Each structure stands twice: as structure tokens, then as C-alpha cells.
């Protein structure tokens, strides 16, 4: 056990029965999450993020594979796993009519605390997550941010070493999101391991020590945000030309300094080794071919580029 991480999975799978036949929601994933890290699971809706999270938190039995979570075998000792992990689902799970404080005390009691301990722990969490103003009101009256902080407090009641956060900042405004990021970083400072899912690239980039990109139930890339960006190497030049982009695409795709070229929404997207050197060359080439350039921009690769590179789709497409 001494070398094992907080989470280790081998070939973890989950298939669902559907009318059209079995659907493989999670198609065999191998993961290792180190203790004390914020680990992000990045992918579009329906990629298998929540299904994986539910399996790792004992809510859903895997169809195959094995996993160790917080030092316990997930399949053989789910009850031990439950005692050691916190889980904050996408919907949170507090009752609209119940006061936040009451929910926290009840949650503590479910983890075996005495009434007094549960009350004291609720007080601590209310202070820690700044819920003082609303703790004695029914949670139905909370703002989005307050609601989310209560959800997270509920997942921390028993001081777990590992906490799962499913889309923790979903539906929050930028301010609320930034504030929650700070809270999540504080959990890491307290020595906790955080496993979160997100479909926000900024969130994965800003918050996570390591990332796995998941698509169609498979992990397509894994590493630190920087490693992932470096994997696709080089810079991205986006340009718009007058008329059809086809001619420009054919012209530029054949150039030795262009690693990849594609057209999306009438714009050209080129992956190049050195953007600064490539731009003048691009300008000359288009000029020589009599193609008029309308816009041009250079960007360092983002996680979206990584995602596009790995899956052929952009993560920024509007969620269905």
C-alpha cells in the first residue's frame, strides 16, 4: 500500500442497458490520482465523467475492472470507502425546506458522530465556508454560491481524506466560481485530495494539478495542464481570408512549417512550430496567391486545442 495513490483504477468499465443495446458509458479506464493533488476530469457532457465519479464513490457498481479508493478495495469494501470519502454531486443534495445547519448536523450524525460533535462540526464548517448569514434559513432561499458552499460543507463533515466534486462550479457566475476555486485550493492546503469533474477549460487549467481528458468513456490524454499543452506542441494561428477558405487551406496545408491545418466556421486553424516566424511566411504566401487576408491571430495552445487535437471536436461547442 505504501506506494499506492489515493485512487487507482484498472480497466474500470460501466455499461448501461438501453433499447438499442448496451451502451458503454465508461469503456475501461486506468487512472492514478496522487495523494494531496487536485485532479481534474475534463470532458464534454455525456463523456462518462459522472458515471466514473459514481463508480469511485460506491454509488454505481462497475461492470468490470477494479479500483482502490482511499486505500480500500472499491468492490470488496465499499463501506470502508464510504467512511473515507466525501462526495458532492452535481445537484448537491440538500432539501429545500431544511435549514443548512440542520442538514450539516444530520450529515454528521449519519457518519456516526454524537449529536454534540455533529453540532460543533457544523459550526466549524459554517464558519469555514462563510455560511453564517444563511445557515439558519431553509436552503431553498440560498444564492447559487451559498447553495454550492453548503453542498461542499456536507461533503466535508467527516473530514475525509478524499473528496469528489462533480461539476462544482456549474451554474455559478464568474465571481462565485473564483471564490469556490479558492475554497477548493484551501482543501488541498489542508492535505486533502480533490477529484473533480468539469467541462470548463479555464477551471481545469487554473485549478488542477493533473488532468485526464475523457471522451466517449475513454481517457484520451492525461498529465499536468502544461504537459498536455506541450503534447500538441507549437502555436496556433487562426486566420480569416476573403471568399472560400478552401484555396488558402490547400495552399497552407502543404507548407513544411504547418503541422496541421483545418477549417472551421470559415476560419483557418493552423498548428505551427514557431508562430512568430510562421506569420510573415503565411502573409507572403497568401499575397503571392492573390488571396486577401482579413484577420489573423496567434495563440499559445489552450486546453481546448488539446481537446480538439485528441478528439477532433471542440469542447466549446454549446452543450446539448
Amino acid at each position, binding site marked *: 500500500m505504501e506506494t499506492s495513490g489515493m485512487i487507482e483504477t484498472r480497466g474500470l468499465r460501466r455499461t448501461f442497458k438501453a433499447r438499442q443495446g448496451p451502451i458503454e458509458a465508461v469503456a475501461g479506464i486506468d487512472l492514478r490520482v496522487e495523494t494531496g493533488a487536485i485532479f481534474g476530469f475534463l470532458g464534454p457532457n455525456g463523456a462518462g465523467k459522472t458515471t466514473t465519479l459514481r463508480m469511485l464513490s460506491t*454509488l454505481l457498481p462497475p461492470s468490470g475492472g477494479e479500483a482502490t479508493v482511499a486505500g480500500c478495495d472499491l468492490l470488496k469494501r465499499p463501506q470502508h470507502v464510504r467512511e473515507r470519502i466525501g*462526495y458532492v*454531486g452535481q445537484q448537491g443534495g*440538500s432539501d429545500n425546506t431544511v435549514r443548512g445547519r440542520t442538514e450539516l448536523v*444530520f450529515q454528521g450524525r449519519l457518519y456516526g458522530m454524537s449529536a454534540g460533535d455533529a453540532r460543533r462540526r457544523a459550526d466549524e464548517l459554517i464558519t469555514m465556508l462563510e455560511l453564517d448569514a444563511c445557515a439558519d434559513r431553509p436552503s431553498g432561499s440560498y444564492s447559487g454560491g451559498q447553495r454550492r458552499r453548503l453542498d461542499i460543507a456536507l461533503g466535508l463533515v467527516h473530514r475525509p481524506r478524499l473528496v469528489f466534486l462533480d461539476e462544482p462550479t456549474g451554474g455559478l457566475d464568474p465571481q462565485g466560481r473564483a471564490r469556490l476555486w479558492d475554497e477548493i485550493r484551501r482543501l488541498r492546503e489542508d492535505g486533502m485530495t480533490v477529484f473533480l469533474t468539469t467541462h470548463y477549460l479555464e477551471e481545469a487549467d487554473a485549478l488542477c494539478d493533473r488532468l485526464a481528458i475523457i471522451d466517449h468513456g475513454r481517457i484520451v490524454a492525461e498529465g499536468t495542464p502544461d504537459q498536455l499543452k506541450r503534447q500538441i506542441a507549437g502555436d496556433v494561428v487562426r486566420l480569416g481570408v476573403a471568399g472560400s477558405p478552401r484555396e488558402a487551406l490547400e495552399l497552407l496545408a502543404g507548407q513544411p512549417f504547418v503541422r496541421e491545418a483545418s477549417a472551421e466556421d470559415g476560419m483557418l486553424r493552423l498548428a505551427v512550430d514557431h508562430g512568430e516566424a510562421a506569420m510573415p511566411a503565411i502573409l507572403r504566401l497568401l499575397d503571392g496567391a492573390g488571396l486577401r487576408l482579413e484577420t489573423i491571430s496567434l495563440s499559445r495552445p489552450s486546453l481546448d486545442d488539446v481537446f480538439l487535437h485528441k478528439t477532433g471536436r471542440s469542447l466549446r461547442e454549446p452543450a446539448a
Partner: protein
Amino acid sequence: MKVLRDSWLVFERYVGITVRNPAWVVSGLVQPLLYLTLFAPLLKSVASTPGFPAGGAFNVFVPGLVIQLGLFGAAFVGFSLISELRLGVVERLRVTPVSRLALLLGRALRDVVNLLVGSVLLILLSIPFGLIVHPVGLLVVLGLQTLIGMLFASLSYALALWLKSEDSFAPLLTTATLPLVLLSGVLLPLSLAPDWLRSIAAANPLAYAVDASRAVFNDHLSDPSVIKGVAIMAVLAAAAVVTAARTYARAVA
């Protein structure tokens, strides 16, 4: 014992929620009171019909009404669970080490307590109308009602978790409860029924509960129908609790 401790915790929580939003309790109580005031008076003249059981109209009707309260008071509890499933409450509770059985038992117990309060109220209010009841009989009927509540609340929770949608749960409930009531002899005793109807009713477990209840109210505690009704409800309730607890332990939104 962990199951008992956890069941109590869950029970306490749901009692709290019920007290803050007693709409279901109130609607559960209004129904039998409406039957009592708007339907029972019709029975006065029917009671002299040949084939109507002895014991007076109220001692025939109220025992059935109590059982009907048990059915309707418990059968609709699943609705609350569907919205909890959607709000993530079910997952939040399931991910804690709380006893799986307690999650079901605690909330079903809350439903049973609701039922018992309503039943006692109904019985007390019927006394001025001419209902005769003995303390021991009352206890036996409340015991029977506990089993009925456990049975139908558990079934309701299991169905709600299978269907996961109010839109399919509501029509199913209406379709399932109406024949149960019609074939139980609650409204009019099955002794008035033709043979074919009576043989269909023999397959309805609720009919045995109604028989047992009537026997108790008419002071025939030693009548075999009492033990028969209680035994049938006990076996079904146990099976329903186990089924529902298992379903609950696996439920995801």
C-alpha cells in the same frame, strides 16, 4: 444497533420535513373525513339490505375506511422520493456509511406514524356517529395499519425509484389503487357481491385486511380472519421492505 440508530436519525429528519410541510398529511386526513360525512350517511338505509353484515353501518364502514386510509395514505409517498432523487438527496445519503435498510425504514416509519395519527383521529371522530370500539381492538387495528403502511409505503418508494418520473408514477398509482379499493369491500361489503366478483376479490390481499379490521371492530378478536389478515399483511410488508431497501441502495438519478 446501527440499523436502529440510523433508522431513528432518518425518521427524525423526515418527521421534521413533514412538520414543516404538512400538505400531504392534511390531504390524507381530509379524505376519510369526507367519506365519513358525505358518504357514510347513505349507509344507514343500505344497512338493512339483506346480505349486509351485522354490527351497524358504522361498525361495517369505518373499519374499511381505516384500511383505505392506510392504502391512500401510504401509496403516494413515492412522489417525494422522485423529487429527492432529482435534487441529489438520495445520492448524498447513499454515499454516507448509513445503514442501507435504515434509509428506507426511517422514512417508511415516518409514513406509518402519519397514518396512525390519521387513523386514531378517524376512529375517535366516528364514535359520536355510533362506532363502537374497544381498547384492545383499537391496538390490533393500529398494528394492522402499521403493516399496511409499511407495505404500501415501501412499494410506493420502490416503484418511484424504478420509474423516476412523476409522469409515469401518477397514472400507475391511480390504475393500481382503484381496483385494490373496489375489490377490498371497503365501500360496500363483498358479502353483497356476486360470486364471480367475490372470487376475484379473493386474490386481493387488501380484502383480507378489511375482513380482519371488520372482525376486530365487531369484537370478534378470535375470529380466524384477524390472524389471517395480519399474517398476510406481515409477510407482504416484510417482502416489500426488503425489495424497496435494495432498490433504494442501488438508486441513482
